[in-house]
């Protein structure tokens, strides 16, 4: 408990958390608003092939919070670890808590809570921006629907898992610049390309659904990225609990390897 509080203080006493939170909220607001606007004005999404069923539109809009927003908790988690290496604060950290795995555990719990905060903020802004725009277009906002709120809950869980994945990645790649490049390259470039490829080739779809972003979208239950990749393939996504397991597995593997390699090393 003491260690979780210490890790929380680490997070909240530098600027990075609210910078990331503001960018996340702005980005999600923009994307959710854009989609809500497109749907409610009935804009042509290209021959209607990829157009979602009208009753599912609100889920697509709100899920921007996770399908777009997940990169921010990952970055927060990664930086929480790499900044300790970068600023050599591992020295006082390990002097205070020589049993290093306890510190890592404290970080994981603190970051999971921060991931929930980021998730709640992202879904709040997606609902706040998306729902009125959908309503203006006469579309279902889904606010009275239990399914919508279950999706939000799963989305918050997804972002909690993503922040833990960030911790694991930071422990595995302590070089801050390298870690950030990996996060951005993978989430913004490699995975979208792979998932687009999954829409074309059957084998790529089988592999693609295990990609972390796809697993995350499966857990949440909606994403415009999987919408784009989905046509004709009903097996494009895992079940939601399978998606959750994939994310837990990735987090466990990263944290596990990191804790037995860089985290164990000499601190000099």
């Amino acid at each position: 408990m003491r260690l979780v509080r210490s890790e929380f203080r680490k997070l909240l006493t530098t600027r990075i958390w609210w910078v990331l939170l503001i960018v996340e909220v702005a980005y999600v607001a923009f994307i959710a608003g854009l989609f809500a606007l497109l749907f409610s004005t009935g804009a042509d999404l290209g021959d209607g092939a990829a157009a979602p069923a009208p009753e599912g539109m609100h889920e697509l809009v709100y899920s921007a919070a996770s399908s777009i927003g997940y990169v921010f908790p990952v970055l927060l988690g990664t930086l929480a670890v790499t900044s300790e290496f970068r600023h050599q604060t591992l020295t006082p950290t390990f002097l205070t808590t020589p049993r290093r795995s306890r510190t890592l555990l404290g970080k994981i719990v603190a970051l999971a809570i921060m991931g929930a905060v980021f998730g709640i903020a992202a879904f709040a802004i997606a609902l706040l921006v998306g729902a009125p725009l959908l309503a203006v277009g006469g579309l279902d906002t889904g606010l009275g629907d239990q399914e919508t709120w279950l999706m939000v809950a799963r989305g918050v869980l997804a972002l909690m898992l993503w922040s833990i994945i960030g911790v694991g990645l930071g422990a595995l790649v302590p070089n801050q610049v390298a870690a950030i490049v990996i996060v951005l390259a993978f989430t913004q470039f490699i995975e979208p390309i792979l998932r687009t490829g999954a829409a074309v080739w059957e084998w790529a779809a089988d592999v693609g659904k295990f990609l972390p972003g796809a697993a995350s979208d499966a857990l949440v239950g909606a994403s415009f990225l999987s919408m784009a990749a989905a046509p004709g393939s009903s097996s494009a996504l895992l079940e939601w609990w399978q998606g959750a397991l994939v994310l837990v597995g990735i987090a466990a593997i990263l944290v596990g390897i990191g804790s037995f390699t860089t985290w164990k090393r000499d601190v000099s």
Partner: protein
Amino acid sequence: MPQGRQIAVSSLTKRFGPVEAVSNLSFSVEPGRVTGFLGPNGAGKTTTLRMLLGLVAPTSGTATIGGERYRDLDSPLRTVGTSLEASSFHPGRSARNHLAVYADAAGIPITRVDEVLELVGLGAHSGRRVGGYSLGMRQRLGLAFALLGDPEVLILDEPINGLDPEGIRWIRVFLRELAAEGRTVLVSSHLLSEVQQTVDEVVIIAKGRLVYQGQLSGLGGEAVVMVDAPERDRLRSALAGASLIFSESDSGFAVRHTDAIAVGALALASGVALRHLADERAALEQAFLELVQEGPQA
């Protein structure tokens, strides 16, 4: 009243690839006094301290504090206070928050943070980001971290580096006070002169090996009388006339195998007015340098 605990280093060895940074090093540090840990840069001082603190894994050998390995201590910060190099801070965090992070983790009340910041003279700057601190201020913050748990053992790596003269005077007095309270105080330095006035005992290492442990006075530095006069020629002939062994430099004469009283009496008898007369242990630094340059006897 703190108990004080013995630091015991036994056959400690650390290899970095083919390089043996610390070789079969053994020494002990007793409570109730200030012990200097000396050696030139690269002698293995920091590596030894980091092994003692569980930050670096020894290749072989043990290092214990009060009989326990650092990582086995129940409450490390309340037992051992450490200040290593002056750069282990997140520049965006204030001094107060920096310490509060570790106070939280160690279960130390936050009020203690303000106490130690006041104690090291940073009270007025505690809310500022550490990134804007001078080297001397960082050094003081490092010391504040060491004092956070009011520990029985203090391990300070080059604590005088970067301090202004007023700060140096302050830390000397402070370390002596801590030792007088019964605490174990180990202070590393690459300069003997830096800690000469503070330490009771020294542990000297060179090339990763022990070259001397014991009283400072046992280092072989013999007593020297420094004497100077406006009329140097007359003083020189007076010294030579008394068959004294002396050497001459810009600052006057260094006379061996005698004391200031005898030299003063000689000057009076010879009618030479003196500018300066003092007993010194000037050869100590020289003895230290010879010791670390020779290195350990193989």
